[in-house]
């Protein structure tokens, strides 16, 4: 098991409070790790900490053994970590081609850019088809695909994907998850944050459930999906459902990290 990314006892947040409260998490190379958890659990914050938009107050973030906790977003990008953000992040009045080429902004050689663009266009035909259209004229799902394409310009060693299904219709959502699955099949390392737990966990090698800034459960995607307590955590009814959860079989054989009792009721 080779951890490409290690987050060790990280605390991070905004203003006075911490959202990540001693989070420890490893992401293994070549696998798709899916972070799920209720609103406010700290999923997106994990991505912000990794991509350098937010610096951890305490704890370590290491990528390929090197500490990146204090690096700028640009420096982290140069390390090979690329994020596909949650909000629509294409530059709407620029063309699709321009948007995708901008993904290779940090590449210094023109030829390299063109070559990457060629590869990306093969991988994402939509880019070639709509190259000259402005990004704003694309549908939500198409925009998401172009965002993926843009991220692939740098051939990332670690791809961070933040809630890709947000605001998309089910059919289109499917398309996005198919794409993620294909990327996973190509052997890419992906850290996915997803509110839609089933869709996310279905395609994940590793599933991680966050609650209140800590890892609550970790296991294979399928195991987590099958774990009845996830539903409870997710719906914020873990306290109420505790009796029922106890009847269910305990999570199997994975390194489950139990958080402190939350006493929510």
């Amino acid at each position, binding site marked *: 098991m080779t951890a490409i990314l290690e987050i060790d006892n990280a605390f991070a947040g905004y203003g006075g409070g911490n959202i990540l409260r001693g989070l420890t998490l490893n992401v293994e190379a070549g696998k798709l790790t899916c972070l799920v958890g209720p609103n406010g659990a700290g999923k997106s914050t994990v991505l912000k900490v990794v*991509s350098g938009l937010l610096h951890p107050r305490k704890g370590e973030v290491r990528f390929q053994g090197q500490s990146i906790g204090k690096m700028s*977003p640009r420096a982290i990008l140069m390390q090979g970590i*690329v*994020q596909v953000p949650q909000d629509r*992040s294409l*530059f709407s009045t620029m063309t699709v081609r321009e948007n995708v080429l901008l993904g290779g*902004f940090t590449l210094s050689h023109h030829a390299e850019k063109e070559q990457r663009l060629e590869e990306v266009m093969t991988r994402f035909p939509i880019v070639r088809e709509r190259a000259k259209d402005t990004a704003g004229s694309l549908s939500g799902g198409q925009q998401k695909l172009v965002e993926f394409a843009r991220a692939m310009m740098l051939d990332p060693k670690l791809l961070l994907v933040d809630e890709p299904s947000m605001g998309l219709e089910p059919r289109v959502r499917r398309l996005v998850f198919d794409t993620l699955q294909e990327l996973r099949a190509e052997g890419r390392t992906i850290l996915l944050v997803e509110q839609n737990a089933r869709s996310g966990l279905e395609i994940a090698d590793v599933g991680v459930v966050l609650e209140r800034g800590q890892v609550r459960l970790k296991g294979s995607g399928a195991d987590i999906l099958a774990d009845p307590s996830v539903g409870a955590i997710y719906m914020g009814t873990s306290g109420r459902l505790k009796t029922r959860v106890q009847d269910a079989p305990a999570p199997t054989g994975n390194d489950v990290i139990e958080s402190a009792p939350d006493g929510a009721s």
Partner: protein
Amino acid sequence: MNGGLLLGASVLGLLLGGIYGLMASGLALTFGVMRVINVGHSALVIAGAYMSYELFAHLHIDPFVSLVITMPVMFLIGMGLEMAFLQHLREDREQFSVLVTWAIALGVEGVLGYFCGTDLVQISTNYANSSFSIGGVQIVYIYLYGFLLGALLMGLLALLLRRTTFGWSLRATVLNRQAAQLIGIDVAKVSAIAFGIAAAMAAAGGALYGMLNTFNPGSWYDLIGDLLIIIVLGGFSSVRGAFIASLVVIMFQEILSVIISPTWADWSFFMLLAIVLIVRPSGFFGVKTREA
């Protein structure tokens, strides 16, 4: 009213409008990229005018030729000013930027006064008064050259923005600062360069201003009001809007000047502004901007 006079005034207004557009476009650019209201922009115009003047007076370099010197120099000065005084602004950026750029303008005025004196000067080339006639309208070369230079530089700016990687990163920064950061664009550097470009445009505008007007270091006060109103009319952060607005406003003014009176023409900026404020606060030509 004399038709020839009207036509003459319209042509003049169009040409002069191009020159004002050149000056106003830098102002719109800095606001778009940095959310900075650069009230010192006209001081940079005057600084550019002085550079051209000095090069012309002492080394006899034609002001159009000396642009290859003044524009890069002003570009560097602009970048330096941005990095020294504007980059650190965070809180209430738009409003604090007024104070900061005002202070910069005072400093520029002081430095110009110290080195160049406060006498009124003008860049008087030997072709300053030449003109030719088309259909009874005298076209003055210097206005025509000025307009062509304005159009050329605006074209180059458009090319820069559309065709170069830097231009893309600049537009990306205008459109979505955080997403730009996430793809590795150094938005601080982009801002500094954008300010530098605005300063270089100001230098070109200054050379033209200096050929058409007498000026001294305090002339920037006269200019900034007009430029600010132009960019409000143009939608504030739109470079194209600023250019179109200045064509329209200056033409309007010149025409009013001959058909009613110069005194009334002077009100035209404010009349247009009042109409815009009442009818369409987002500006005549701009798309609705977030800040309005």
